[in-house]
């Protein structure tokens, strides 16, 4: 079990840092089609912000904010967005993840459709990567048991 840190400096600075980390992660995801970065990198930074919260504020406080249930839903949603956009292109008559076909439902021009398709896929990848990172860390810090069971044992 990861306990709450008792160092006031570490706790305060990470508390102030985490919102900025999350904004930076979302910036990396949202600008992935213009500049370096994208879903994987942004997702890892988002996951790192939650992992920092676990390290400094302890697992119990983090689970109150980010439950394992929500984490699993986000993980599945990310994979679903990625696969869904790919399949949508397939259904519209192109290859898997052939974003140009999205033009038929978005009506914005082929280049713009490709850009939006990439953004959508990156959001999906970001969510999935973040949730998997957090899930791995939760598993390590609880010893693989579901968090509900750990809390039951503590009471």
């Amino acid at each position, binding site marked *: 079990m990861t306990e709450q840190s*008792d*160092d*006031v*400096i570490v*706790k*305060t*600075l990470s*508390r*102030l840092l*985490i*919102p*900025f980390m*999350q*904004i*930076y992660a*979302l*910036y990396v995801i*949202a*600008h992935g089609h*213009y500049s370096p970065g994208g879903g994987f990198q942004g997702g890892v930074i988002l996951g790192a912000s939650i992992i920092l919260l676990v390290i400094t504020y302890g697992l119990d406080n983090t689970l109150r*904010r980010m439950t394992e249930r929500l984490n699993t839903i986000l993980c599945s949603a990310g994979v679903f967005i990625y696969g869904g956009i790919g399949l949508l292109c397939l259904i519209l008559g192109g290859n898997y993840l052939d974003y140009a076909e999205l033009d038929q439902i978005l009506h914005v021009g082929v280049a713009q459709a490709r850009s939006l398709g990439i953004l959508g896929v990156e959001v999906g990848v970001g969510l999935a990567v973040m949730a998997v990172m957090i899930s791995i860390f939760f598993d390590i810090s609880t010893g693989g048991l579901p968090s509900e069971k750990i809390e039951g044992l503590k009471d």
Partner: protein
Amino acid sequence: MEVTILVHATDESFKILEDARERARQVLDTAARLTSETQSVHRKRVEEIFKGARQTKAEVLKFVAAFLIMFGFWLLLSGHYDLFHISLGVLCCGLVSHSSQDLLFANPRAGDMRVIVKRFFTYVPWLIYQIAISNLHVARLALSPSMPIDPEIITFKTKLESDISMVTLANSITLTPGTITIDVKDGVYYVHAVSKKTAEDLMTGEMEDKVAHIFMEADHVYVQDVLDMSPIFGALRKI
């Protein structure tokens, strides 16, 4: 015989009167209790409405403040100022401010944020000046052949209250050459000082006073804040 009947009747009538009085008292008691209960329930409801309104207002204010800070950071990073990217930014900042506003403003004090920011930016030049002075001192220690160092660990109890002010002081001490904050535990600072002079400079408590002044804590709460925050008193001070 008649006398006993009379006495009996009198007894009976007294008993009935007693009963009636008892019942009347009970009714009155119940009425009074019900009234006070209704009143207290009513008062409690009004209090809850007021408290709820105050809490909602504070939460909305926190959300707006967090959103503005986050959006400023986003604009600094982004560099694409078209409608699409700005709207993405609004969405992301809304999400993060919603989920992390309690992290950013964990213990808001009853201080004016503008005053704190203003004082902080007047504190930074003073800190830089202190760093420069200590730098020269440590350079002289390092360059003199006899190396007149006298390392020691000093502890002092701080008068600061909030975590953010403690962190500001701890990092200011660490930034100043010659002194390093080792640990802060329960309001006690453990500081390593490289020579007598740096330790004495720290023990005068000037830096602590300045930090307390920024965050309006300890003995800086009353006089100075009233002077700084209300224009009327400011005008009076000038006279």
